[in-house]
């Protein structure tokens, strides 16, 4: 199968001397749903910037569906639809105008561009807003407009830089469904996100960048399999002051306990112990997202 993205030894040193990428190599397969994670300033947006020609690389090799950006830049660009992190459309242009212009830049004749705009606007639920100036749209609509714009030329690869930042939960979930649908239709998707739940829900493969280096590049499944223990928060009946609990327990207050459980041990032993001590568990939840715990751990390791 053809690789959607092939990056070899990518280095980016900005004019101020800041080395944003220190020789990243990664491959994203055609049809993949790939998450690129990392803390702020790790190099995610620089990587996306180089892929989409908004940032000049210092050295290294980048191929999009086999087209090298050094030798076949226009062909490489044709494969990509970009949804950047910040709104970057003309605030004074009408929604439909933005889409039709964008299609024109990719060589789509005017008549076809209008037809395509109708499809994209309806897909993204913006058809009713097509005549409105883009600056009058809500934040969520603006984000959908950027997705619609990126899809105008029917790209094979969709790159989304934090597509759901600042979007309410309902809209975020509907965008997830939409992106999953696009991926099913064969579009390769690469996204960066700060919502690790988003990456866990959507993506099959994951890369973690920290301080300009790729510290992980693996499948989501194998990454999650490496999580050895999980922390649960238990809401309990009143806990007696003198109650003796094991080291795996942390008493938060008189109604709350935290317990660390090894993944292969399960929760039965914990419940049995609490029953023995006369503690009734009223409800329980994960302390935090599993991926989030692992992410923090990996980034911290990488920083040392």
């Amino acid at each position, binding site marked *: 199968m053809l690789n959607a993205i092939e990056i070899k030894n990518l280095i980016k040193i*900005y*004019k101020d001397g800041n080395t944003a990428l220190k020789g990243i190599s990664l491959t994203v397969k055609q049809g993949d749903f790939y998450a690129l994670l990392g803390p702020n300033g790790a190099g995610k947006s620089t990587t996306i*910037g180089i892929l*989409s*020609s*908004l*940032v*000049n690389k210092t050295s290294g090799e980048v191929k999009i569906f086999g087209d090298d950006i050094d030798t076949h*830049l*226009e*062909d490489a*660009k*044709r494969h*990509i639809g*970009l949804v*950047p992190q*910040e*709104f*970057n*459309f*003309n*605030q*004074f*242009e009408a929604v439909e*105008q*933005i889409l*039709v*212009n*964008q*299609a*024109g*830049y*990719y*060589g*789509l*004749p*005017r008549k076809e561009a209008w037809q395509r705009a109708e499809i994209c606007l309806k897909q993204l639920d913006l058809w009713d807003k097509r005549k409105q100036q883009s600056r009058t749209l809500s934040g969520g609509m603006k984000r959908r407009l950027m997705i619609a*714009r990126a899809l105008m030329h029917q790209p094979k690869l969709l790159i989304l830089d934090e597509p759901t930042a600042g979007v309410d939960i309902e809209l975020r979930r509907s965008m997830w469904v939409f992106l999953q649908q696009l991926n099913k239709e064969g579009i390769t998707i690469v996204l960066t996100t700060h919502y690790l739940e988003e990456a866990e829900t959507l993506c099959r493969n994951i890369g973690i960048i920290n301080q300009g280096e790729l510290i992980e590049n693996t499948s989501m499944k194998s990454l999650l399999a490496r999580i050895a223990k999980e922390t649960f928060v238990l809401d309990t009946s009143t806990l007696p002051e003198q109650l003796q609990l094991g080291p795996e327990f942390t008493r938060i207050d008189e109604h709350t306990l935290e317990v660390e459980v090894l993944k292969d041990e399960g929760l039965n032993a914990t419940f049995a112990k609490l029953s023995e001590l006369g503690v009734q568990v009223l409800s329980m939840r994960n302390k935090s997202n599993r991926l989030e715990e692992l992410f923090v751990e990996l980034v911290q390791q990488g920083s040392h």
Partner: protein
Amino acid sequence: MKGQLYFTAFKSILIKEIYRFTRIWVQTLVPPAITMSLYFVIFGNLIGSRIGEMGGVSYMSFIVPGLIMMSVITNSYSNVASSFYSAKFQRNVEELLVAPVPNHIMILGYIGGGVVRGLLVGLIVTCISQFFVTLQIHHLFILVVTVLLTSITFSLAGLINAIFAKSFDDISIIPTFVLTPLTYLGGVFYSISMLPDFWQGVSQLNPIVYMINAFRYGFLGVSDVSVWVSLLVICSFIAVFYSVAYYLVNKGIGLRS
């Protein structure tokens, strides 16, 4: 095949640019019409009637070509400077940078927008001038070629200004401190043959002198400098400005990090 794609991309940029300045016609088309009407009334009618003839024609007839050219220069320049800088400021220039649009096409699209606005304003001012003077055309070819090339020259200059600009102030500095003085000293209101020899020599370093004179020749058949030299000077400026603009866009200066 690629030619067709490029032509569609060029057309899209051009349509977008024309749509932009016609949407805000009150800011782009009306002010030059009012300003030039005032010039015609005050300098042409009121003061001009006391001046008498210049270059063998009435003062009003003498200044009309220069005033038309002045509005073409200003509008071609400011259209590209403000549109391209605004695209940088709002970051929608990225729409073009990520698309498979060659840099030549991007430059030509923006220049096309500047030329269309410059010529449209020139036409409006020409129509207004008809209320004050009956214009005759001495040499249509020279007239059309000069106005077109001048418009291209200043559209390119506006683009270079916008590429370097880091704030909206930066796109008003050049028009205020360079373009306006050069235009006023470029022989719009007087014949440079009136100047002492030294200042005539200095004036010949001003490219706008050549543009206005070639254009005036197209209307009136009178010029302070050779028309062919003028066209050569304008073409040289286009070649230099285009090369600079292409180099800057290609390097991504002010556009790519």
